[in-house]
């Protein structure tokens, strides 16, 4: 296994980390409208992710920065090619971060309601758009011999990619609902479980269709294994949810995300961004990667830093392990 293959795996790991973690906090954001019945319940939901959403989001920045360093050509083609969808994602992430922080800083009804709308939409849109983006990466886009994206916005909104968007949106919402059931007490916990079941069924339908489509289009034996694991974990997560085993259900919905991302990357390899115009023009782990020296330094950094990050981020979840309910939300404006 050469260093650029290692880095293909590490990039996959960073994206997996991002979707696992920010996945549930996007989901919780979506649930503020689907599940919460009043402001105190909305606040319970927001506070389940309050201390952790920021750290979760850094997995995206790391995936972006690491792609820049390890696969500059991939970074350049991807972000200049998917320009407008990425712009929309960035706008959402900007507003979302400010919304969490500022919503509680003023008592006015309008102020709080507007930021609550913002939290919902800026969670929903990226949850959908990341699926569209990955659908396009796996399926391939119009890339010319200079590695420039030459398609347009509408080319990105093809049925396969849109289905990918529905998968991430429903999967993250399911993941968020299961997380809510795990982190809350009282009535909202029960309702989160019930909603998780419904959303989980929709997720299963979309995911099965999308992953099968992926498998038929470009899968092999390994990707088939990942597919089976993803679907089995999702079903098991639903069963655990119905049985009231919230910890298991959350772990299993996490496994679903890990396996689904793994499957996409397995299908992709050794390409990182296939060209639909000419196979010769595809970006691969070889022609898009940095020099061995840079990859070596980056490997040291990632191999040392990532486990440490996981340790202290894991510790954060331990510190905030207590379930919360409406009784824990203070009235005061901070």
């Amino acid at each position: 296994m050469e260093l650029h293959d290692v880095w293909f795996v590490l990039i996959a790991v960073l994206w997996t980390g991002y979707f696992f973690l920010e996945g549930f906090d996007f989901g919780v954001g979506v649930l503020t409208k689907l599940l919460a019945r009043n402001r105190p319940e909305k606040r319970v939901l927001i506070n389940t992710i309050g201390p952790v959403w920021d750290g979760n989001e850094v997995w995206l920045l790391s995936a972006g920065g690491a792609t820049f360093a390890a696969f500059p050509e991939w970074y350049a083609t991807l972000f200049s090619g998917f320009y407008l969808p990425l712009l929309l994602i960035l706008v959402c992430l900007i507003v979302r971060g400010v919304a969490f922080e500022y919503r509680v800083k003023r008592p006015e009804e309008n102020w709080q309601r507007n930021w609550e709308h913002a939290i919902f939409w800026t969670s929903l849109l990226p949850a959908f758009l990341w699926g569209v983006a990955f659908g396009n990466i796996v399926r391939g886009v119009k890339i010319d011999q200079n590695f420039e994206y030459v398609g347009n916005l509408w080319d990105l909104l093809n049925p396969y990619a849109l289905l990918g968007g529905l998968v991430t949106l429903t999967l993250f919402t399911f993941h968020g609902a299961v997380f809510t059931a795990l982190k809350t007490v009282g009535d909202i916990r029960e309702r989160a479980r019930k909603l998780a079941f419904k959303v989980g069924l929709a997720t299963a339908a979309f995911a099965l269709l999308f992953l099968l489509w992926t498998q038929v289009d470009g899968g092999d034996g390994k990707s088939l294994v990942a597919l089976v694991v993803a679907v089995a974990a999702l079903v098991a997560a639903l069963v655990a949810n119905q049985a009231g085993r919230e910890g298991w259900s959350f772990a299993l919905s996490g496994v679903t995300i890990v396996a689904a991302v793994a499957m996409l990357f397995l299908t992709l390899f050794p390409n990182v961004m296939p060209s639909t115009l000419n196979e010769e023009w595809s970006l691969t782990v070889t022609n898009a990667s940095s020099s061995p020296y840079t990859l070596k330094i980056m490997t040291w950094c990632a191999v040392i830093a990532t486990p440490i990050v996981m340790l202290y981020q894991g510790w954060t979840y331990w510190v905030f392990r207590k379930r919360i309910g409406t009784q824990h939300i203070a009235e005061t404006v901070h």
Partner: protein
Amino acid sequence: MDLALAPETLARWQFGITTVYHFLFVPLTISLAALTAGLQTAWVRTEKEKYLRATKFWGKLFLINIAMGVVTGIVQEFQFGMNWSDYSRFVGDVFGAPLAFEALIAFFFESTFIGLWIFGWDKLPQKIHLACIWMVSIGTILSAYFILAANSWMQHPVGYRINEAKGRAELTDFWLVLTQNTALAQAFHTLSAAFLTGGAFMVGISAFHLLRKKHIRDMKTSLRLGLVTVAVGGLLTAVSGDVLGKIMYEQQPMKMAAAEALWDGEAPAPFSVFAYGDVDKGHNKVAIEIPGLLSFLAKDDFTSYVPGINDVNKAEQEKFGPGDYRPNVPVAYWGFRWMIGFGMTSFAIGLAGLWLTRKKFLLPQHLRVGDDEVPHLVLFRNKALNPKLTRLYWLAAIWTLAFPLIANSWGWIFTEMGRQPWVVYGVLQTRDAVSPGVSQGEVLTSMIVFTTLYAILAVVEVKLLVKYVKAGPPELTEADLNPPTKIGGDSRDADKPMAFSY
């Protein structure tokens, strides 16, 4: 959509707007994190409640500020790929590494521990909670270091070779990229300016309350801390600026010649106080100068030769081929002056304040005040400033609280525009760095979107800051004074509301 503009023009405007905007929040974040951590340390060590109130007060302003810094930073991470894809392809092998280090090491640190600090008041024992804000502070400083090392490589590329076959720069010595003198001097300069910024912010807000005779006890502490920070930060900014200037005279003589509107080399070279010139003809029409001072700034003596814009332009033409290698001279000239002028004004106000509010034991009996009284501003032994001048000083401190922010912005505009037409000095020109596949319509769209969004958020943020500045330090609660002893919080009352919730 094609506009009658060079392809890089809009991309440059966008980068300028988003980066200058982002950098309004960065220095305040860096300095307020450390200052808040310092205040909280004072609380933990002395258990004086004024320190805890100050921690909560400045901590809140810090949080309002860092939220904006974090979210506008996300754009920075991705816009190289969006608008500067040829730049990214060319330099990714070198430039990407410090960026990735920044994310993996510094951003994770910052963002994880800030969550722990915000929500951890009733979940973490006192000392662990304190350690969290220090971790945030370390994260902000590390982050600054990595990104400045990356920028320094654009100013003065080292530790790389050009791979002709792949058409890109490749890293050969990462350690050199991190430790070259440009990176060290830039980090030193930027970090000390950050503390000047936070200090002036603290002084201005403390002065605001003291002028109104509110929250006197807490604000006196903050005022002193702010003044000391301004004095130390300002001094170090000046020293490091001098060091960085000398390095730049070696590495980018064009930038420094433009900063002085020195068209033709001179020995000894004068420092320009005011100049108005003709860029096309390459000379000044009006020039007020101090003889020899520029030689001193560049080379530490009053006689040395300093090359002018026309000389460097000719030298670069010989080296790199025909072309215009001059940056926008008026921007460089005035940017350099605004940077120094605004920054040093704050420094002067801080120094004056430090003297005027000197400690009790340095004052005669009748000018000493109690802890709950606004201090006299004492210029000479035995004599306090009259009420008018006193009021004037407080007002000056308030009105200049944002001066370092202006200085920082001009500093970046100067150093980045002074490097033009290069994006990587001597290696890659800005016009060759843009995304060829991105239309001007797309760039214009994103520029309008970001600018509008940023303008709205600026209003929101400033209004919030003003609200919380006016509110002053909060009253302490029973819970504030009795921090938990166990990680996760003491389970005295399972249904007790959280100390902080969104």
